């Protein structure tokens, strides 16, 4: 058992090392991309439309934009090396501080959405696979198709319309917490957890109510791939020789489906869930906008629109690192779930 764990850790370490060149590539690429995009940040951040040439020139110098691109790159890289992601012109704060404030909001939303999606998708996929071609199977397929073809912002708005405007069940969709609730002392940055740690059940409930609609609208979008992959791999699993063996000795239906078929079928779902999570993190800008959620994606979008280089570069670096981390976690999970992996 110990050797298996050791092998997993070693493999994770190797993966982490091998991802460093990719991260560096992402850094340089984003930097260059920002430089070739049209728009002059100096003009944008000058005090007003009437700002004089000298003023713009001065801002440019202050931002270091008068230097050549390779020089700028070297400065940028050495800053990154010292853990300095630069300062946002928009908020006037260091990018690192901005990201640190907003990342938990995004993560909390994405985690919740993924959890909801998995809780819905896996049983749906299993039910569909148990009776392929049946009414249930077609129902699941229809539901998945609907989830995919309705864009997130549309489903988000629909949910707001129904649950906030018509039924009045949900609080107004304005951020992570309504203005009257006092924030708990920050520990993890995940409001639902911080409230629990502070023992404030009422606050926790308020935060959850705020969270549920955006999370559901995001989950709706990713239920489809997860349910489909569960169904497909469950079908393979149910048709496999070892399930036949399990049936041949008369194991109970539950044991055959859950212990034998599903545990094997869940392996590819883990991989897909990792990919889905990474995609959701970056792509949830629409949901964040619709629900005024103070996350990193909407922050990066605002920065991009105002040619604010540092936050965009910081955001991309953050996303790339998260992607690496998520893959690592998936790898470790896979290693634990499948004893065959540590061999290869």
């Amino acid at each position, binding site marked *: 058992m110990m050797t298996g764990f050791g092998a997993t850790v070693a493999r994770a370490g190797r993966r982490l090392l091998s991802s460093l060149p990719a991260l560096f590539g992402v850094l340089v690429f984003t930097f260059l991309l920002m430089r070739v995009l049209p728009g002059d940040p100096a003009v944008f951040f000058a005090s007003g439309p009437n700002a004089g040439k000298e003023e713009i020139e001065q801002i440019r110098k202050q931002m270091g934009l008068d230097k050549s691109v390779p020089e700028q790159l070297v400065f940028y890289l050495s800053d990154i090396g010292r853990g300095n992601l630069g300062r946002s012109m928009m908020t006037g704060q260091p990018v690192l501080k901005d990201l640190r404030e907003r990342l938990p909001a995004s993560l909390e939303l994405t985690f919740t959405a993924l959890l909801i999606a998995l809780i819905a998708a896996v049983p749906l996929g299993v039910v569909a696979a148990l009776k392929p071609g049946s009414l249930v199977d077609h129902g699941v397929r229809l539901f998945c198709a609907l989830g995919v073809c309705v864009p997130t912002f549309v489903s988000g708005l629909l949910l707001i319309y129904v649950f906030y405007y018509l039924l009045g069940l949900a609080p107004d969709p304005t951020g992570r917490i309504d203005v009257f609730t006092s924030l708990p002392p920050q520990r993890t940055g995940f409001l639902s957890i911080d409230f629990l740690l502070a023992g404030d059940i009422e606050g926790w409930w308020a935060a959850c109510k705020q969270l549920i609609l955006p999370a559901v609208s995001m989950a709706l979008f990713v239920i489809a791939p997860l349910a489909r992959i569960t169904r497909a791999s469950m079908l393979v699993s149910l048709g496999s020789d070892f399930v036949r063996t399990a049936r041949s*000795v008369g*194991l109970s239906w539950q044991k055959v489906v859950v*212990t034998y078929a599903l545990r094997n079928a869940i392996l590819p779902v883990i991989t897909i869930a990792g990919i889905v999570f990474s995609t959701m993190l970056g792509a949830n800008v629409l949901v964040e906008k619709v629900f005024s959620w103070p996350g990193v994606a909407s922050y990066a979008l605002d920065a991009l629109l105002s040619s604010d280089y540092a936050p965009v570069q910081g955001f991309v670096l953050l996303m790339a690192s998260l992607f690496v981390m998520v893959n690592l976690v998936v790898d470790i999970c896979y290693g634990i779930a499948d004893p065959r992996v540590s061999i290869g």
Partner: protein
Amino acid sequence: MSEQLLRIDDLHVAFSTRRGTVEAVRGVTLTVEAGEMLGLVGESGSGKSVTGFATTRLLDAAGRVTGGKILFRGQDVTKLRGDDLRHLQGAAMSMIFQNPRAALNPIRAIGLQIADAILTRKRISKDAARAEALELLRAVQIRDPETRMNAYPHELSGGMCQRVMIAIAISCNPALLIADEPTTGLDVTTQKVVMDLVAEISAARGMATILITHDLGLAARYCRRIAVMERGRIVEEASPRTLFSSPQHAYTRRLVAASPTATSRIEDLVTEEERERHAAVVSRPRQELAHGTPPLLEVRKLAKRFDQGAAAVADFSMTMTGGESVGLVGESGSGKSTTSRMICRLIDPSEGEIVFDGQSIGHVASRDFHRSRFRKDIQMVFQDPNESLNPRFTAFDCIAHPLMRLDRIRAGRELRQRVEECAERVGLPLDLLPRFPHQLSGGQKARVGIARAIACRPRLLVLDEPTAALDVSVQAVVLQLLDRLRRENDIALLFVSHDLNVVRMLCDRTIVLRNGGIVEQGESRALFDNPKTDYTRKLVEAIPHIETGPMLAAAL
């Protein structure tokens, strides 16, 4: 007559497929007595496995029993539902399968899997079930059972996995065990050990066994009664002795003839009319080589080491002359496939020299060897005719591909002529050329694979288990074809196989490999009749021979 345990009465099973209903079993009637071992023999598609699955109620969703009865202790199995059915499965009858590794749950420790089976029957604690599982592992003679309890199937060899499978099958003392090709794909020595174990356990527990197999020799060795199936029907049922000495049905006669034995020659394997066609060639004696002719292939001190671990092949030397056939035999993992691939220049040797026709070719990197002028001269026929043909190429394209690549023949009349000539040489009807692999039978695919290999008129043909995936009757025809090609065109054959009977017939000389090294080599007949090493003797003795008669029957 003792107690009748199972009676199958006019059983019909149909499968609904895209192309309509297919009748797999069409009126099977047979009985099994308590404690008896019955052999159910037939080639692929004969419905023998389907009969087994219908009996244990494990048919796919597409399969349906459309008629007849399966009476187990007087109770109709086909009508059981729910708990009655679950009581039947495992407790009353159980099954072991072909491909034991796939038949075990890959992510569950084997001890748990055995305990699962025990716990469905008995209301005992998990620890008690575990202790019982350990006992079963001992019963199936697994060494070091305490540690093996926590092993996963991928950590065990195929033979070990089959023993675990047997442990699961016998965990609840069934009255009937159905063994569906239990040793197909295992080495001959492992095959013998596993079958001996099955026979021993059945005898000790008074368990009746149905042995489903395509191997007449195997059935003859262990069963007192054999039922032969063809296209969903039982065509003959007799004791092995009667079956082999005086087969009644035409199909049985063909099957018996095609099953290679210790003394059979390639000519004996096929029926009269097949033999006539090429009689002239077969009877032509091989021309003696002039003295001092340089060998076609000379391999010196060949070795291959993969990334980590011990050498897969070490210090392998051999020579071959033109038109000679050499067999390379050994158990799985003995390095025979690795060696053949190095000689084919599909992988690079770590050390040693390969000299072909006086030229050293060992140093040419395998990825560049396709440009060498010797690529045409050394061709390969692969094991699985299904996997080794491109599914999007027609038979014509498959054969034409090497001609276009290596002989630089452009598409046109000449190419068509050459392809048709190849097809004729391997006996592939020309109207099959436009077909895709999935539209061809196993034997036809094997012919396409051979036609592709001989298209560029090679001087050395390396065959990696070319008949392992084929039925015996098809194997007989393919072997004859290979032998004819060798005589007609003076192609040297390097024949890699674990089937010693086949090697004995086809090859002049045989090399026995073990753990990457040569154990013994020499003239085939002498080597098999008089093995010098224990290892070779063990291999030879493990072959199920038809002549030896049913061992158990004699003992009883």
